């Protein structure tokens, strides 16, 4: 895609808006609330990161936004498209405007198709290009996603590409129909640390050039901080904290967000650990478990308990904070009343003790 064509495409941008989206799965007598009144929007050309652990509802949002599933209640709008009530027959037409990038670049490409075929197909199917013009356009996309020199890559099949190259090809395929929204579900978590930056900054560059919006789904707050404009932190289908990426991550207020930050491998943090105890490893293990870093690990320990116990039937309390079982700061108020998002548009948090736990701010080492 030439730069001019991409810029011209800028006029076709759209805003994604989710309002009070709830998704309930019913299975026999078991009810799971996957999303609970989730609202957020993505402006054209912006990247919003949806952050949370497995089971937090991130992927359910992706499935609803792409029209694979419908919300139980609430509305989803992309530009003029009313996604939540979209008739199935119009889905194909809609998908031209919403493209996905998946986690596993090894299984999301057809192993029989060459790079060129992979890129030409959406051009022919969605944009009705002729074979010759699709070929021309596919070459330009290869340049855009840096699969160059073209002669060398055009006829390669996925197994001949490295992980990073494969993911760049998937991104190329996604931008081929000139989408208004790209939904990237953990696009770099299976790649080597050394090539993640390359792929993330490619997505960043493309949204700047084309004005497409990006919904970036991840469990890694570091990559969210690096490319996203805004961050939405999800816990069990509830938005617990949201706002400008820098603000939310540097001054995280919700205990859950801070657990996510603590879980990021960070050599600078472990420096503290190793100089303290790494060389004499077998000293009193009892001490060892509590004393890892200058960070506030009390809350992390709380989190670990919940992860390791046998999952019981999920009884979703209708009142109370969704995080209370794992929260070290939980009080009676958290059990009796559900916190709602409070704060400025730049930074909102749903926690009764947001200010209370601020006192023990994670210190930067």
């Amino acid at each position, binding site marked *: 895609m030439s730069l001019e064509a991409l810029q011209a495409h800028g006029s076709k941008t759209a805003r994604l808006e989710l309002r009070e989206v709830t998704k309930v799965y019913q299975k026999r007598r078991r009810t799971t609330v996957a999303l609970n009144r989730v609202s957020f929007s993505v402006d054209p050309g912006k990247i919003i990161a949806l952050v949370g652990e497995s089971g937090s509802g991130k992927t359910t949002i992706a499935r609803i936004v792409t029209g694979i599933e419908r919300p139980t209640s609430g509305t989803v709008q992309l530009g003029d498209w009313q996604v939540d009530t979209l008739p199935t027959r119009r889905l194909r037409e809609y998908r031209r405007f919403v493209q996905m990038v998946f986690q596993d670049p090894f299984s999301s490409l057809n192993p029989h198709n060459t790079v060129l075929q992979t890129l030409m197909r959406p051009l022919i199917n969605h944009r009705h290009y002729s074979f010759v013009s699709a070929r021309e356009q596919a070459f330009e996309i290869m340049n855009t996603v840096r699969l160059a020199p073209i002669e060398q890559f055009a006829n390669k099949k996925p197994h001949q590409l490295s992980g990073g190259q494969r993911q760049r090809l998937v991104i190329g395929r996604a931008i081929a129909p000139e989408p208004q929204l790209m939904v990237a579900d953990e696009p770099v978590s299976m790649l080597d640390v050394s090539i993640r930056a390359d792929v993330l900054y490619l997505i960043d560059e493309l949204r700047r050039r084309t004005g497409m919006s990006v919904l970036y789904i991840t469990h890694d707050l570091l990559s969210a901080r690096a490319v996203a404009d805004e961050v939405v932190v999800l816990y069990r289908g509830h938005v617990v904290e949201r706002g400008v990426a820098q603000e939310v991550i540097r001054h995280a207020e919700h205990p859950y967000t801070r657990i996510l930050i603590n879980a990021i491998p960070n050599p600078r943090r472990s420096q503290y650990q190793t100089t303290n105890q790494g060389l004499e*490893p077998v000293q009193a293990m009892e001490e060892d478990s509590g004393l890892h870093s200058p960070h506030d690990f009390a809350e992390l320990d709380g989190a670990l308990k919940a992860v390791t116990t046998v999952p019981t039937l999920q009884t979703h309390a209708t009142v109370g904070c969704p995080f209370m079982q794992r929260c070290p700061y939980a009080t009676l108020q958290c059990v009796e009343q559900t916190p709602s998002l409070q704060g400025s548009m730049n930074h909102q948090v749903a926690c009764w003790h947001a200010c209370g736990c601020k006192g023990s701010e994670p210190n930067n080492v």
Partner: protein
Amino acid sequence: MLEVKDLWVTYKSRHGRPVTAVRGVQLTIPDNMFIGLVGESGCGKSTLGFAIARLLDGRRNEVTGSVVLNGVDLLKLDVRELRALRWKKLSVVLQGGMNAFNPVHKIQQQFMDAMRAHGNFTVAEMTERIADLLKQVQLDREVMEMYPHELSGGMKQRAAIALSLVLDPELVILDEPTTALDVVVQHAIVDMLKNLQRRLRFSVLFISHDLGLVLEVAQRVVVMYAGEIVEERTTATLLQKAMHPYTQALLDCYVDPQAEEVHLAGIPGTPPDLSLPLHGCAFAPRCAKVFAACLNQTPGLTFGVDGFVQCHLYTPQGGTTDEP
């Protein structure tokens, strides 16, 4: 104690050129030591782990050198002798290991299978042992009576780690044990593993592409590139100053998420094709500090107080006076 001497592994292929994935590796794993092995995909770190555990088929691969575990060369053992050693002396947890549980048997059954195959135990002994191990990996006793599908990914991986410890091995090789899990679960498991190792005092070879993670758990770090070990040091000294430019570049990929400015760095280029012979230093094409000697001379090892580095910067040509 495990000693790997001059280990070479070549994958033979009927179609293409043979790929030499491990090239002359020397490695010592002392008792009660947590060693982390890091490198990008395709640098031979899993192959090294497989070769040590004798998981490579001798008919299709060529493995030379020696892997000596307490005076016994594993590479010279026949299948029967090897089986006697597995699980008791050395066990392995693989990346997809958590999905290798048999879906139609309870967790308890699968532990018992391994125990029966390698020793004589009464049912009561086995039950007690399993309950104890599950407790060690912070799982509830009820997990014994559960089927694999009833467990989450993190719980399955904990169970897989417990299974590897069932006969008290001296060395456990873990190949990317947390890669498929999300960060919070990963952190919890790695923490648990670290405590377990410090308490039970077995040795660990922890293979991962994530240097940040390895630095949080390991006592020594081995960095592999293009089938060779390019740096081996204690975690503490590595953190103070990484010597090899590759290690430095890997370390630069990690930034503090709460820093004022966050810019992710990568390492441009790709690791070399291991089916071709290497000339000079394998990292030279991607190295920021490359100079003439790197292109045509293979760097030797420069030893320091607590490890070594394989880089021209620290040989007389490099002119660096730093001690590794």
